């Protein structure tokens, strides 16, 4: 669809922010500070000023440590959360301010796969019911036989035997459940899939199977992925582009090959150096000092400043903007901008 205008990204996030209120209700906002009663509303800044775009047919991986806002980004795009600021565009249309009813046509195009296959299937529904429901809901014109065919087709395509369809989710293993969850997302023929750490709850031996299944589905159905993960080897295998998130901000966005060959942001470097290598005779891990700052009181300058070896006064006071590098990657770092990383 819409191949005549390939220059327009499928999904476009523009300066998206998400803040969660920490103090709910009037009474919680009143606090004692130095003998004075003051009113204070604390907020968790989960996602700050994130701009991303996903091109049709690619697999954009979002990586970062836990708590950096990866899942929040996924939920914002899926419409499970509404952004506090910024805009989300899908196929050229703004989607973040639409009502549930207006979003319905979009639901057929955009689906989500969740982290925990033990929780993402309704335990009281058989697989058949779980897979039929979206088909019936979105295409009520289909006859019962057509719905059954569709479900069987999807089940076969994810490698689950259609004769198991009368069983309940608890009768399946984690890997099978995740296959079924993928099947459920595929029943509505989506073109874009948000995968929120789809393999992190699975056994290592199953992870590869599920990944390959998702790659197969990508080839066969021409899917576009937004893949959230914290596993860098998966990124290398799966992603065409990578966005590195730190404390709710994008610090580097580059093609997978470029990023792995030539990471620029100090945080990306540290992250990549932590990937275990087979030829690891002399480990050269970059050890980061300190802790991640709390997302409640965000640092004024660069979010990574407190742990960065190259930080200077400018990093402390001014938030870096994403700057395009000669090789096409976007990096938000003053040190890269000023070219003082080499020393």
């Amino acid at each position, binding site marked *: 669809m819409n191949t005549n205008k390939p220059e327009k990204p499928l999904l476009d996030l523009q300066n998206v922010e998400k803040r969660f209120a920490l103090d709910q209700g009037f009474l919680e906002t009143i606090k004692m500070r130095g003998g004075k009663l003051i009113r204070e509303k604390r907020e968790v800044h989960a996602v700050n000023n994130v701009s991303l775009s996903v091109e049709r047919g690619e697999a954009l991986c979002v990586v970062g440590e836990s708590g950096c806002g990866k899942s929040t980004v996924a*939920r914002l795009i*899926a*419409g*499970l959360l509404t952004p506090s600021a910024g805009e989300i565009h899908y196929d050229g249309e703004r989607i973040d301010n639409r009502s*549930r009813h207006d*979003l*319905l046509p979009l*639901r*057929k195009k*955009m*689906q*989500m796969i*969740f*982290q*925990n296959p033990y*929780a*993402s*299937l*309704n*335990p*009281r*529904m058989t697989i058949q019911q779980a897979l039929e*429901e*979206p088909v019936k*809901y*979105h295409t009520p014109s289909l006859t019962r036989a057509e719905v059954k065919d569709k479900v069987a087709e999807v089940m076969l395509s994810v490698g689950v035997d259609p004769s198991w369809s*009368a069983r309940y989710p608890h009768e399946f293993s984690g890997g099978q459940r995740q296959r079924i*969850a993928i099947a*459920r997302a595929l029943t*509505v023929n989506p073109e874009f899939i948000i995968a929120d750490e789809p393999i992190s709850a699975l056994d290592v031996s199953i992870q590869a199977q599920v990944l390959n299944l998702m790659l197969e589905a990508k080839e066969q159905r021409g899917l576009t992925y937004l893949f959230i993960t914290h596993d860098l080897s998966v990124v290398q295998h799966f992603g065409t582009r990578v966005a590195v998130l730190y404390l709710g901000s994008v610090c580097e966005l580059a093609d997978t090959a470029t990023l792995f060959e030539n990471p620029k942001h100090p945080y990306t470097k540290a992250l990549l150096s932590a990937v275990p290598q087979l030829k690891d005779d002399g480990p050269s891990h970059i050890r980061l000092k300190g802790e991640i700052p709390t997302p409640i009181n965000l640092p004024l300058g660069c979010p990574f400043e407190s742990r960065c070896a190259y930080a200077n006064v400018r990093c402390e006071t001014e938030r870096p903007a994403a700057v395009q590098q000669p090789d096409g990657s976007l990096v938000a770092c003053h040190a890269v901008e000023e070219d003082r990383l080499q020393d």
Partner: protein
Amino acid sequence: MSNFSTNVEASRFSRMWNSNMGYSFRRNPVAVVSLCIFAAIALMAIFAPLIAPFDPYDLSQIDIMNSEYPPVWIDGADKQFLFGTDDQGRDLWSTILYGTRLSLLIGLCAVTLQAFLGISIGLISGYVGGRLDSLLMRMADIQLSFSTLMVAIIFLAVTQAMFGSETFNQYAIYFLIAVIGVSEWPQYARTVRATVLAEKKKEYVDSARVLGFGPMRIMVRHILPNSLSPIFVISTVQVANAIISEASLSFLGLGMPPSQPSLGSLISSGFDYIFSGSWWITAIPGVILVVLVLVINLLGDWMRDVLNPKLYKG
């Protein structure tokens, strides 16, 4: 295809029998005995017109000369009256059968009404949240701060005064169901809301939302089936409570009229004669009432133990 579905049906029963619940049921003699007694009482109540030797509502079968015969095992009894007769000469056994039927009917209908109100309000309040949640839960708090019996007594006394006891007696059963049903919904609403709050954070609800399903569908088809276990548990306890409430109200003269006695009004009508030696008019329906409520509560207890995963012992 039909062959396939019968297979599923058969396996559903065996699945239930072999499930954790079925196993614990078979291993628990108290639960088995309670269910048997409850089933016996319920069956007798349902088939009362077939079992009962007399029709207590048929005035032509009642003879005032037969009043206050003792049960058959006591001297001076009339052989045709198994449990003796009451003050109006009605066969007590038949009257108890019909009365149990009324008590059970009122109890079940009142609980259905409670469950309908409570589950809808609890689901909406838990799922929607925010101001609506606060509003509905404060309403529940206000309702809970009045005792059920107090609300029922005021309501029934006012309606009785408004419509006159003739009309009131005619529609007493509906008034009782309505008042017991409406005054106990917060029990359900609170329990359901609590489970909904826990369930709606799970990923299957997010997944349903991403698929674009409406809140109604998510609440009824996804969250409700997963919140059933506490609903089952309170339902049993609430049926027992409703039967007791009905009996208390009837005992106070605000329930079923003497011409159509429930267990409560039977106990109440016999109470006037208890010191003149006719103890059976009060005692026998009283025992039936206590046994009925006890077995329902025991079943509820067992169900609570089984459905509470924290109590699983390995």
